[in-house]
């Protein structure tokens, strides 16, 4: 590795979005500390403005990297069209969650500046993961993100299940990190490097990997599988989503998964010359198939909406994993589209649940939304749209992104896997439509919780609904960027 401090001339410009996020988070905490009473109501709008500024800077980098990716910090940090697309996905997720959080936090009386700061820093961690060309940078981003999530999950600190969820996520997350690190250590020992481009060069020259690297690969897959909630490493997900404050569950079920999938795409691309790659990819296929089957079938048995969405999330990661494991260039665009879609529809669905006014220590079940559709039309329509999109009904974003994911899988020749995916996603229609059935066909009783509407949450839901239809009917802009994006992830090989 080159240890010369070769700072590229415009390195400050390259990390401008990250700088805004980190400094913005610090600013929020300081404002909270010094002007608690006067500025408290402005914390969420301020966080949204910081995110908007970040998005603006990220978009402004497009002309800079539209021809070729640029790397910084001695080849460890990549800015490219692909990272711009994923950065915007993370920012969109965090923005929606901040808008949903404000009303929720005020109702639950836990409205604090640190909450928004942690969301911003978590977004910073995800950006590092997506941009890191050196596994050290990726791991640091992953840990920044994880530490933020540990705190956010336990943010509802007066209610016991939030504490418990935080404990579970912390122990599981730290355990998984241990596996990732040990896998990387073995990679380092075998290849002498942890930089993704150098791994690619090494593997192009030495194509037989040997058992040690296979073990390393399995360890990394297990660790990242924990973070992705891939079966059989999904055990924490339902409990954590149920216990976490609902907007946090929305955030943690979407954006971090997208960031982890980018890391996997880069890693799989780097190891693609290895002779054992076919064997490794069949391990990934087993995990994906298990996730799709287990996620979709166990979701049927759930009455708690947040747990149902947790199992549905396990299945959705399974679909995305099918595309990632093909290691084809068009998988990058399919994953990007799926990530945006999943952010819109899953955060939207959790958002409607977060409106239900009831004791957060009790589960939010199907009975809680019974009869809501006619009494509260906006919440009803919103939840219906998100459920249809999650089910993959044509016209919605969910259909479009599933279509492209399965197209990639079929083009790669994995017809069997694609069929399993399509079959399990047909099964999933049952439990998504059951929610719609409860919304409109069931009578709610007196105790049915009232969905509370605030301007911010309504705005977030409206934005997500519009997004679901825009992506569903007009997904081409993402695909226009695809050759450039694929080039950046696959390092032009």
């Amino acid at each position, binding site marked *: *590795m080159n*240890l010369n401090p070769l700072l590229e001339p415009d390195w400050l410009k390259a990390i401008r979005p990250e700088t805004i996020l980190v400094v913005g988070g610090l600013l929020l905490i300081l404002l909270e500390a010094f002007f608690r009473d006067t500025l408290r109501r402005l914390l969420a709008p301020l966080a949204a403005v910081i995110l908007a500024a970040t998005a603006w800077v990220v978009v402004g980098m497009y002309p800079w990297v539209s021809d070729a990716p640029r790397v910084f910090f001695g080849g460890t940090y990549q800015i490219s069209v692909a990272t711009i697309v994923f950065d915007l996905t993370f920012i969109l997720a965090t923005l929606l969650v901040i808008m949903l959080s404000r009303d929720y936090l005020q109702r639950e009386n836990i409205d604090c500046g640190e909450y928004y700061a942690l969301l911003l820093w978590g977004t910073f961690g995800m950006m590092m993961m997506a941009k890191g060309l050196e596994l*050290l940078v990726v*791991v*640091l981003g992953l*840990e920044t993100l*994880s*530490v933020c999530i*540990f*705190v956010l999950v*336990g943010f509802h*600190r007066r209610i*016991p*299940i939030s*504490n*418990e*969820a*935080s*404990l*579970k996520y*912390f*122990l599981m997350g*730290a*355990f998984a*990190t*241990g596996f990732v*690190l*040990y896998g*990387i*250590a*073995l990679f*380092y*020992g075998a290849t*002498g*490097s*942890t930089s993704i481009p150098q791994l690619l060069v090494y593997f192009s020259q030495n194509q037989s990997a040997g058992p040690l690297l296979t073990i390393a690969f399995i360890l990394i897959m297990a660790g990242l599988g924990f973070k992705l909630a891939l079966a059989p490493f999904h055990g924490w997900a*339902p*409990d954590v989503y*149920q*216990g976490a404050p609902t907007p946090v569950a929305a955030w943690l079920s979407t954006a971090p998964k997208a960031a982890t999938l980018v890391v996997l795409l880069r890693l799989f691309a780097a190891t693609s010359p290895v002779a054992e790659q076919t064997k490794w990819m069949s391990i990934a296929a087993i995990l994906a198939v298990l996730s799709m089957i287990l996620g979709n079938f166990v979701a049927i048995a759930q009455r708690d909406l947040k747990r149902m969405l947790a199992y549905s999330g396990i299945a959705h990661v399974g679909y995305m994993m099918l595309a990632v494991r093909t290691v084809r260039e068009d998988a990058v665009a399919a994953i990007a589209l799926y990530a945006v879609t999943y952010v819109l529809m899953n955060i939207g669905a959790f958002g409607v649940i977060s409106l239900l006014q009831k004791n957060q220590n009790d589960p939010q079940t199907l009975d809680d939304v019974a009869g809501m559709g006619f009494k509260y039309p906006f919440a009803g329509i919103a939840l219906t749209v998100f459920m249809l999109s999650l089910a993959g009904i044509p016209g919605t974003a969910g259909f479009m992104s599933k279509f492209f994911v399965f197209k990639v899988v079929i083009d790669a020749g994995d017809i069997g896997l694609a069929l399993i995916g399509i079959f399990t996603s047909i099964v999933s229609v049952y439990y998504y439509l059951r929610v719609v059935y409860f919304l409109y066909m069931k009578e709610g009783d007196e105790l049915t919780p009232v969905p509370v509407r605030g301007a911010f949450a309504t705005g977030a839901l409206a934005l997500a609904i519009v997004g679901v239809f825009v992506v569903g009917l007009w997904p081409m802009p993402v695909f226009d960027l695809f050759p450039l994006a694929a080039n950046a992830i696959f390092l032009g090989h």
Partner: protein
Amino acid sequence: MIPTSWFLILGAILFSLGVLGVLTRRNGITIFMSIELMVNAVNLTFIAYARELGSLHGLMWVFFIMAVAAAEAAVGLAIFIALYRHRETIDVDEANLMHW
């Protein structure tokens, strides 16, 4: 000079002991200590490989891993305290409010 493989084997044993501890222990703090053991086994492996390969790269990893482990410990212990306030215990078997 002690051959590198000895350090690697020690690292693998420590890592396995850590995994075993996580899977069998029920006290939250003991589980966390087992995780720390895993992380330190990783550090040992990195140092051993760095000496073998004659590169500083692995040593950089060790510094960052130590910093990350410290950050995790700070947050983790705070979580244990928050849980203890509610439950008067940090036994993970008692943390069973949520079920399938």
